[in-house]
């Protein structure tokens, strides 16, 4: 790990000012950043420590939930209001990482965790995301865990996060602050497709800080769930995951929100499945037919073609569980 200085800002304004300097990164829980720094994937000269900022609250009310950016994954997952009002979020967090990591990691940092593509995380290989223009060894290499949706000729890495997938079915909105003031961005607009610039992963501007995440309350949010398929039960990144939120009127699905993890280059919404559920009775055949549509536009490799089949099965299981 190369040497860096650590700046401890006394307020948000000074944090943003410091982070706008070159070769500077925020550090929150440090669980991804320090690992990347140890492997020389990230080489910051200055870290701006977010820990001193009073930004770890979890505020739940009748209209919604507001998570401050430094709220820990474990605290959000265990919060009784979250468990009851936004179960998909609690379940996605509990299925993420290990107890130790969840105790350290923040929801803000979680949204910015970087891909687990093995080539990206090893400086011995070329990688367009790490060194723009150097090539992508994954496209013709070991790509069993790689994405099948949103891929480009330059990068096929998955966004590895679980929490953001849950937030895709909850209409979460991120609150950002930068040198030019504050703005709000829907979770679905936050991550970018790789296209020919896979090194640019989000719409965050240099120095911009996530201050909080606002999530509305709704009937669908209360009737939601997360299913994660992984290679081992203890803790592991998703091979495929599915988040579902249903607004039901008796046995009829008024509206549905469905998203998937482990398959997309960003957290992936599945409008093709949602459309096939809207206004339909929640019968076995309806769910089966809708889940069978998941993955429109998928582009698979020989090693990861199984993900499309698994995606449809995971979506079906999640729909059955949430509709029941």
């Amino acid at each position, binding site marked *: *790990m*190369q*040497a*860096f*200085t*650590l700046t401890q800002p006394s307020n948000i304004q000074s944090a943003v000012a410091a982070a706008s300097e070159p070769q500077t990164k925020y*550090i929150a*829980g*440090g*669980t991804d950043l*320090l*690992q990347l*720094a*140890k492997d020389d994937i990230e080489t910051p000269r200055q*870290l701006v*420590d977010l*820990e001193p900022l009073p930004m770890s609250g979890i505020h739940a009310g009748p209209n919604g939930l507001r998570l401050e950016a430094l709220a820990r994954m*474990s605290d959000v997952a265990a919060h009784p209001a979250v468990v009851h009002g936004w179960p998909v979020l609690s379940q996605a967090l509990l299925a993420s*990482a*290990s*107890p*130790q*990591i969840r*105790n*350290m990691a923040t929801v803000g940092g979680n949204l910015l965790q970087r891909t687990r593509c093995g080539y990206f995380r090893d400086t011995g290989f070329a990688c367009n995301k790490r060194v723009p223009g150097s090539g992508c060894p994954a496209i013709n290499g070991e790509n069993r865990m790689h994405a099948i949706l949103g891929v480009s000729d330059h990068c096929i890495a998955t966004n590895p996060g679980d929490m953001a997938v849950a937030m895709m079915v909850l209409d979460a909105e991120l609150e950002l602050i930068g040198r030019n003031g504050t703005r709000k961005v829907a979770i679905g607009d936050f991550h970018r497709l790789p296209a020919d610039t896979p090194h640019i992963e989000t719409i965050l501007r240099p120095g911009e800080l996530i201050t909080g995440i606002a999530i509305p309350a709704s009937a669908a949010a209360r009737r939601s769930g997360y299913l994660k398929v992984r290679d081992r039960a*203890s*803790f592991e990144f998703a091979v495929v995951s599915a988040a579902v939120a249903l607004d039901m009127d008796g046995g009829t699905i008024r509206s549905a929100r469905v998203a998937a993890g482990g398959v997309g280059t960003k957290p992936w919404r599945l409008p093709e499945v949602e459309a096939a559920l809207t206004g339909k009775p929640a019968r076995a055949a309806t769910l089966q037919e809708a889940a069978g549509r998941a993955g429109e536009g998928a582009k698979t490799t020989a090693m990861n073609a199984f993900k499309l089949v698994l995606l449809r099965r995971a979506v079906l299981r999640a729909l059955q569980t949430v509709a029941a």
Partner: protein
Amino acid sequence: MAKTYVSATINGESAEFLCETQQTLLDVLRDVIGLTGSKEGCGSGDCGACSVIVDDRLVCSCLMLGVEAEGKSITTIEGIANGDTLHPIQQKFLEYAALQCGFCTPGLIVATKALLDENPNPTETEARYWLAGNLCRCTGYDKVIRAVMDVAADMRGEKVA
């Protein structure tokens, strides 16, 4: 690079040390303070051998900066026993032979302590889930879990069947 002065509480005693910004808490514990009980299995959050308790939270010391220990209270494996008297968790690990090479053991014992502090009456599923971040290549976990369930019952003062 200039070193930073840090003052913290380690195993109940006040501790002061100088560390470089990029040193992890694990580096500091092992190389600066000389508490080598916490192990580095992976350095990437995957194995839990470096587990310590920081202000009542179980964390991986390999992914925390030493300078961030400022003002915090840290419990390491060296703080679990009471002098020469083993903690009941340690005693039970011995009785159940819940260790072979022992590399994962400090982390598992610290994690078990954190579990029982928070939940003195875990189900087996809860215990397994809580200890999921601690990898062991030797025991197959079964003896570990039996030791944990047994010591939990002992510590609650229940007679174990």
